């Protein structure tokens, strides 16, 4: 579509530039070239995902580079997810308590 024609996505050089800017902005350094290459690859995947999310989102949200752009989804989940509570919770009756103060 016209959006893709106007914004074909980052080319390799632009991608590396974007990654360098990301490293500067979020003070990231990597221990060796292999780790750098791995993080660059994850960064590229996250940017592509951000672009896809933006196309799919029905609101006004914008997705792009954040402090978490060099993390895989799994790493992001491990670092910032509530692992103990994820997807499950103790069985509880929703009627416990009430939002009507008078009924409590």
């Amino acid at each position, binding site marked *: 579509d016209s959006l893709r024609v106007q914004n074909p996505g980052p080319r390799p050089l632009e991608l590396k530039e974007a990654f360098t800017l990301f490293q500067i902005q979020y003070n990231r350094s990597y221990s060796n070239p292999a780790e750098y290459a791995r993080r660059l690859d994850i960064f590229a995947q996250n940017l592509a995902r951000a672009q896809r999310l933006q196309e799919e989102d*029905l609101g006004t949200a*914008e997705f792009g580079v954040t402090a978490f752009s060099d993390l895989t989804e799994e790493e992001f989940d491990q670092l910032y997810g*509530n692992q103990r509570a994820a*997807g499950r*919770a103790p069985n509880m009756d929703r009627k416990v308590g009430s939002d009507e103060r008078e009924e409590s």
Partner: protein
Amino acid sequence: VPATCDWRKANVISPVKNQKSCSCCWAMAAAGNIEAQWGIKTGQPVEVSVQELLDCGRCGDGCRGGFVWDAFITVLNNSGLASEEDYPFQGAVRHKCQAKKHQKVAWIQDFIMLSDNEQRIARYLATEGPITVTINKKLLQGYTHGVIRATETTCNPDYVDHVVLLVGFGKTKSPEGRQAKDASSRPHRHSTPYWILKNSWGPAWGEKGYFRLHRGSNACGITKYPITARVALPAKKPHQVSCPP
């Protein structure tokens, strides 16, 4: 229910915190909830200790996740919370509860779970103050700004893994955002209702540490666990603040 509500304008919301590598969103949201409720009911802004919730919780390692209700149980068991200044956040659990060493600056009467109806949640928020909610954080990794309007496919509402503080709601002025976002599409004619949520990933993330989710579609499971502490002081003259529009 008013059209808009933003408790940030009432000086009852503390600065955005950064949980760093400690998965303690549940404790940060609970602390933010107590701070806001205390500020609204007493008229005195306060910043409470997240570290106390981590160190003194009955479930152990709070940096590996937890439940908001356990944070509130800790507050009830300890008869309140110390201040953030006295008992500061360390980013790790120390396994040694220091609660008795510090003076309590805020306490709660009890806590409740609200209904899963967004209109009722909005009413409670507007009349009583901010509440904690648990959401699917999948779309937040790359979020920069704007209103997230997800579907069940893009953000499963049954899988919730992140706790944040709900501080307000409003509507975008038509046609905010979308026109600039995608020049090839027609601008939306309708405004978008949204929730305002306080995250705990620092002020550099999102909209100065906050983000907005579509209101009215159970976006990312926001209605699954709406929980709040209640603060009620036996004051002769109850302090009452309305949510600023």
